[in-house]
Each structure stands twice: as structure tokens, then as C-alpha cells.
């Protein structure tokens, strides 16, 4: 009676075992790292919107301040999405026949709000407050990126918990002078006051910024 396995079977059996081990490690890594990837976090991705609104045109081109539309950002946890009435403040008079603005006109006519798709979101168990970040010298672009130069609005940062903690552990270098908070193309340069000076000026408490209950309540 001849042998069941030929000598080469040893090689194939070892290779199969090795591949199994590699597959196990790779799949574990994917499961572990996938949720933190930019793709899974929808970073650098502009969802389609009812109207292709361009921040670059309105902010950089026309010089409209962030707060003209996002009126609540300094006083509320929510920055505030502008109602159709705000759009129509100008568009009742200019671009009145533009097809691209048809949903805006219908929204005002039918008293039905435009349904924008959310670009930047944090999980529901995170309590983010815009007003305190503005008041303590964190600019829009620290989380939203250079919105003033976005033709279509996209999520610029991953907004993982690691992203939040990077700043909460060491806020100083991310703070900026008061008059630069709404300047989304601002970057720290040699004229910027030192981080320690800004921390003192804004009175940022460094004792409890990484407490769980600062963000999770």
C-alpha cells in the first residue's frame, strides 16, 4: 500500500498554517483600526446637499462673516444652521431665477426647511459645546478645517476621540488671538503670542480638561 500524502504535502500544510496565522493577524488589525480610518470616519468627504452651497464663494469671495449665518455659535452649544430666511435675505433680490436655488425658494414659499446632510458630527454620547470653544480661543478651523476655501463643504478632520484628546491634553499651541478665531486659514506663526500667554489670557483650566465628564455626561 502506497503512502496517502506525497512528500510535497508537508510544504502545503505549513504554508496553509502560515497563511491562516497571517489572515488572523490581518483581520484583527482591520477590525481594530478600521473605525479610526479616514474612510470610516467620512473625513475629506463632501456629502451631496440639496443646494451645492459654496463657503468659498460666500466667505472668501463676498467677505461674509461665519456668524452672519451661524448666529448662535458664540452663545450656544449648537452653532446654528441658518434658516431659509437668512439665505433669502440676499437671494430674494439676486440670482432670483437661478435653477440651482429653486429648492431655497420652494423652502420659503412652502414654509418647509431645507434638509441639509450633516457634514460634521460627533457621536450622540459626546456633548460638544461651540460657545465655550469660541470663548476660550479655539478657532473654527481647528475642527472644521479651512471652510472659507471649501467649494463644497467636507469634513476636514477625523474627529476621533484621539483628535479631541490631543487638544484637551495640550490646548496651548492650538489657541489663537481673539481676532483670528473666525479666520479659517489662520496658522500659528512667529507673531502669535506664546501658548502660555494665550492660556493665561483665556483662563483655560488645565486641571480637568481630560475628565470623562467634560465631554461625556
Amino acid at each position, binding site marked *: 500500500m502506497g503512502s496517502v500524502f506525497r512528500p510535497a504535502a508537508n510544504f502545503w500544510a505549513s504554508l496553509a498554517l502560515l497563511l491562516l496565522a497571517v489572515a488572523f493577524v490581518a483581520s484583527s488589525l482591520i477590525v481594530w483600526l478600521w473605525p479610526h480610518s479616514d474612510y470610516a470616519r467620512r473625513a475629506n468627504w463632501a456629502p451631496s446637499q440639496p443646494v451645492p452651497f459654496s463657503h468659498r464663494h460666500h466667505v472668501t469671495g*463676498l467677505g461674509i462673516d461665519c456668524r*452672519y449665518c451661524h448666529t448662535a455659535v458664540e452663545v450656544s452649544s449648537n452653532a446654528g444652521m441658518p434658516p431659509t430666511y437668512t439665505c433669502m*435675505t440676499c437671494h430674494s*433680490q439676486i440670482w432670483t431665477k437661478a435653477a440651482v436655488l429653486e429648492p431655497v425658494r420652494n423652502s420659503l414659499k412652502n414654509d418647509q426647511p431645507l434638509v441639509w446632510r450633516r457634514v460634521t458630527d460627533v*457621536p*450622540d454620547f459626546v456633548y460638544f459645546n461651540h460657545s465655550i470653544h469660541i470663548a476660550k480661543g479655539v478657532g473654527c478651523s481647528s475642527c472644521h478645517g479651512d471652510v472659507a476655501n471649501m467649494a463644497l463643504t467636507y469634513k476636514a478632520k477625523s474627529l476621533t476621540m484621539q483628535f479631541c484628546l490631543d487638544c484637551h491634553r495640550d490646548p496651548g499651541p492650538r489657541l489663537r488671538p481673539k481676532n483670528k478665531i473666525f479666520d479659517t486659514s489662520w496658522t500659528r506663526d512667529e507673531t502669535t503670542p506664546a501658548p502660555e500667554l494665550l492660556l493665561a489670557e483665556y483662563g483655560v483650566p488645565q486641571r480637568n480638561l481630560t475628565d470623562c465628564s467634560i465631554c461625556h455626561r
Partner: protein
Amino acid sequence: MTRLVAVVALCALGACSDMSDQPKQRTYSPLVGPAQTPPDVVSFLYSEPTAPPLTLALIERGQQRFRIFCTPCHSELGNGQGMIVQRGFPEPPSYYVERLLKAPTLYFVDVIAKGHGTMYSYASRVPPADRWAIAAYIRALQKSQNASAEDLAGAKTEAAP
């Protein structure tokens, strides 16, 4: 054995959600809001008929708010040649016409709240206290355009670089 597999499978299902979408079970409802209106709350279109005390802080607040909400059309100079007007919006009157120089300050406060002509109401964007601040800044603008050298007595009078 089957039961054990079923339990493990059910537990594994729990990993499908990372709890990112977890709205509050008891959401805010106006019905359970404060029964009595807090003391300093005013109605949406209300304009305080008397001006707050005129301070530098008020004018500076007015300048900041003016640059956010008014300059798109009225321009930083207040001459009605803002960027939106340059792009085709009907031109608002300059603040330096006779009619507006003589208008009471309350007039500006009311226009911010209720709108005027093609200008929409800014009641939802500019709260009542800020309307007075902006009106105070408009008054300062008007004064700046008709000021004489004597008005600057006591102030720093250096030539602009």
C-alpha cells in the same frame, strides 16, 4: 449547546452598533419647559424704547456686530456700497443722507428688528441689546463723516501713517 451558541450570537450582535446614534430617550419638550418666563426675556420683535447708557464697550460691540451683519450691503463706511450691492442687490441709502442724520436712534433699532424695503428683518440674528449697540455705532459713523478738527480736542491727533 444550541442555547449557548444562540446566547453568544446575540451578544455578538451587540457589537454591531458603536452607540454613535443614541438619541436621548427623554428629549427636550417645550411642554416641560419653565412655566414662568424668566425675568429678562423679551418678545422676538421687541425693541427697548430707551437707549442703554452709551459706553465705549457698547460702541465696540456695535462695531463688531455691524461688521458681521451690516457690511455685506452697507459697507464698512456705511455708504451703501457693500459687496452684495456690488453684486446686484438694490442699493440701500447711505447713512449720511439728511433724512438718516436727523432720524432718531430708535429708528435704526426698529429697522434692524423689522426690516425696511428690500432689507429683511434681522430680529432672529441680532438680539435686542445688540440692535442698540449697532445703532450706537451707526451714530459714531455718522459723526465721523462730519467731524471737524475741533471735535478731536483732547483726543490723540496724530497723522495717519
